[in-house]
């Protein structure tokens, strides 16, 4: 046993001294931290877009400018609500106590957004009261004393004047010609004393209202002929400005249609805001608590994260094992080792050493997750803490441990056998091909299985031992039948033992062999020998 320990210890120390090991350990907490800060960072990182607007019809300019301003005010209001929740004396307690089990699945931000959308008068009121400053003054007494100053979200779209010398009243095609170099980013224009890049040009021809499309076949062809508004931009990915303008203009066009048909615009608006409440219910939950809560959503999708984690962990450390074995073999260190210990001891030592590496890495991930969530107990990580509590109360973590260990032993056995019959990494990669094909399947099915966790695909794959760890991890939250759970576990244990026994036989002979990797038939003979 002492020699097994020595081999394991050496494997562990050697791998723990590699950069990859530390990158593996640190990457995960960094990713969590990044995702905690990412949303805030992304908001700040979104650049301000400058655009020019030429309305030769004179009908829509005011509408667009006001519409974009209203949109911006909406964002300010949203941010203000978030800000007041975060720093309010009164609200603080209630946010911390949000019970995820009862919270609707869509999350608080969407809730606020929906509220604002279906109640435009809130925003109207906010704008009517001339916006931010009065609202802040009103909020002040309700805020905690140490609340930081409110940061107004940046305006995302800024209208700039046409470049000097470009006339607005010329033909649209000529206008485009003159603007082209600005739009392509070859030249920049002045705005408030700074050089800025032109993001987009919105050009509205004189007769735009004559081309308003109404339902019917004709409308399908209209866009082809550039008869309406032209939106010029070389950045195709960021479509926010386009869709905002489109929405604002179309709202206006529809408003005019309503007026033209003598309909009461306020009534129309009210009608548009009506809705029926819609609840998602799950028959598996206790009676009276059937509402699908955010915790349920976490429970349904968290296994996907775990499957991915499991896959990465198993694959990485099995790869380590393979590399190590090939190093020992190609260096012929193996001979010295085998003059001191039996192949069985060597194999056990290697398995244990690499398992320790894997456990250290995954253990440190879980530990850092807990630490980060505990240390950063702000309002947004309250949510994360709840998430962690959900994980704790479900069977996800113990399932992960069991399937990690068994899955690791299973694949380590296969990789060890491959490593022992190959002399170079290149040879090993050839033999790894089929294994990788097998191993890739759970990554494909990972996203489908939560949608039908006890369906045919999931059940069939469960009973293939090579997939059992991943698929059962995937199904863990969906209360799979006991028969599947216990039965596949027993099968997995038996199969793993069989693979280890077999790879032990191959290892014993292959590890000393040089030259061409053996043919399949030869391998079978070794196993029988």
């Amino acid at each position, binding site marked *: 046993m002492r020699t097994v320990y020595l081999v394991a210890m050496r494997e562990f120390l050697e791998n723990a001294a590699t950069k990859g090991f530390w990158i593996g350990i640190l990457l995960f907490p960094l990713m969590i931290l990044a995702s905690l800060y990412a949303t805030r960072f992304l908001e700040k990182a979104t650049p301000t877009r400058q655009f020019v607007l030429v309305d030769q019809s004179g009908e829509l300019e005011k509408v667009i400018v006001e519409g974009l301003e209203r949109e911006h005010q909406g964002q300010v209001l949203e941010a203000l609500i978030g800000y007041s929740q975060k720093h309010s004396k009164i609200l603080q307690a209630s946010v911390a106590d949000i019970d995820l089990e009862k919270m609707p699945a869509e999350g608080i931000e969407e809730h606020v957004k929906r509220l604002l959308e279906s109640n435009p008068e809130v925003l109207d009121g906010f704008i009517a009261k001339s916006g931010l400053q009065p609202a802040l003054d009103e909020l002040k007494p309700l805020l905690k004393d140490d609340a930081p100053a409110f940061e107004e979200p940046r305006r995302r779209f800024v209208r700039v004047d046409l470049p000097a010398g470009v006339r607005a009243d010329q033909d649209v095609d000529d206008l485009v010609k003159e603007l082209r170099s600005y739009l392509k980013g070859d030249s920049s224009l002045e705005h408030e004393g700074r050089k800025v890049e032109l993001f987009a040009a919105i050009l509205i021809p004189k007769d735009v209202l004559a081309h308003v499309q109404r339902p019917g076949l004709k409308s399908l062809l209209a866009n082809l002929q550039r008869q309406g508004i032209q939106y010029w931009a070389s950045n195709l990915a960021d479509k926010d400005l386009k869709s905002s303008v489109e929405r604002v203009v179309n709202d206006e066009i529809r408003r005019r249609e309503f007026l033209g048909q003598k309909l009461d615009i306020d009534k129309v608006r009210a009608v548009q805001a009506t809705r029926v409440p819609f609840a998602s219910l799950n028959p598996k939950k206790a009676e009276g608590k059937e509402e699908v809560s955010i915790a349920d959503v976490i429970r349904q999708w968290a296994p996907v994260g775990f499957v991915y984690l499991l896959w990465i962990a198993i694959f990485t450390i099995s790869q380590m094992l393979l590399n190590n074995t090939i190093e020992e073999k190609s260096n*012929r260190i193996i*001979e010295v080792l*085998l003059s001191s210990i039996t192949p069985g001891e060597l194999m056990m030592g290697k398995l244990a050493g690499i398992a320790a590496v894997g456990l250290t890495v995954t253990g440190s991930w879980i530990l850092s997750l807990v630490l980060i969530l505990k240390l950063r107990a702000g309002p947004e990580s309250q949510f994360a803490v709840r998430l962690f509590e959900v994980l704790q109360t479900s069977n996800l973590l113990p399932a992960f441990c069991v399937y990690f260990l068994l899955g690791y032993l299973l694949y380590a056995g296969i990789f060890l056998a491959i490593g022992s019959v190959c002399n170079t990494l290149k040879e090993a990669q050839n033999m790894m091909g089929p294994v990788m094909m097998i191993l890739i399947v759970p990554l494909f099915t990972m996203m489908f299985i939560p949608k039908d966790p006890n369906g045919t695909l999931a059940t069939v794959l469960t009973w293939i031992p090579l997939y059992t760890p991943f698929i059962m991890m995937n199904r863990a939250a969906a209360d799979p039948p006991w028969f599947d759970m216990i039965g596949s576990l027993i099968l997995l244990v038996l199969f793993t033992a069989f693979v280890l026994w077999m790879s032990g036989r191959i290892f014993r002979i292959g590890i000393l062999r040089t030259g061409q990797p053996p043919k399949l038939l030869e391998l079978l003979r070794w196993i029988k020998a």
Partner: protein
Amino acid sequence: MDVGPGFCKDEVEVSGDGRAPRWTERLAVEPRENDSSVIETVLELQNVTKLYGEFRAVDDVSLAIPQGSVYGFLGPNGAGKTTTIRMILEIIKPTSGTIRVFGQPSALLVRERIGYLPEEKGLYKKMTARAIIAYFAGLKGMKRAPARKRAGELLERYGLKDFADKRTEALSKGMGQKVQVLASIAHDPDLVILDEPFSGLDPVNQQVMEELIEDLKSRGRTVLFSTHIMQHAERICDRILLIARGRKLFDGTLAQAKATMPRRVRLETDNDIQKLRALPEVTAVLATDKDGSPSTDGASGPYFELHIRENADPQVILQACFEHGIRLRRLDHSEPSLHEVFVNMVGPEAREVSFR
């Protein structure tokens, strides 16, 4: 390459520091006399055969190695030396026959008493020299702290002190090989098995290696090493085993090996030596025109090799030359080198092997 102080015999006695781990105790042991009557047998092979399919890698080899001897394992490439050594160490199992090491049926039972340097040398690239030596010593049963201490001392003694804490990938090939040799003897084994220890070493380090083997011998250890460089074997072996194509050709002392060659006198002359053929002491005459390669190719000189009777005095030849007016440029009746013995015994076999 810097060889450092090399090996110095007095250092053996110096190293005891009173704390007496196993190996320092051992160093104080008096060198055992090589007296065959009281010596136990360290290693014994009986009718050992190893088949790979149809191929007989080792064919019915028996041998016994007495304690304290330096045993040379000679043979051409592919003779089965490495296979035999691997079977001795129980890395592979013989097809038939028995092997006893220190009276035990398995080398693994006495692994702490055996040191092994394999033919193809390699080290963990990312480990330091000190760590590797300590690790292998640990696998052989040494405790961690003494193993590390011992590693440091060995590295210092063999001039690798500056490289002790460097990763072995930074070492030259020769240095790496030295580290591996040290790793194989760090636990002070009673039986040291070295497979081609001289290959890949420069002449200076070959010398260090020879000294190391002699040192082991002087401390009563048994050394078994394989080589195909006869000069080393000739200098340091007590006994040799010659094998070719898996079969044992010879097993015995160096003197016995040389006695298998006919006694001969070598001449170089331009005269006719017909008169010498007639001498009763001379059993055969070989003539050639290429120095050093006596053959029966019928050439008429100027190089001759005269085989003489077991008990004949080579002086007789000289006298006869004098009498018959044969003018000699050279007369040489030194004993044959091991190299000649080797070529004589395995020459035809080795050629066959290389064409197989």
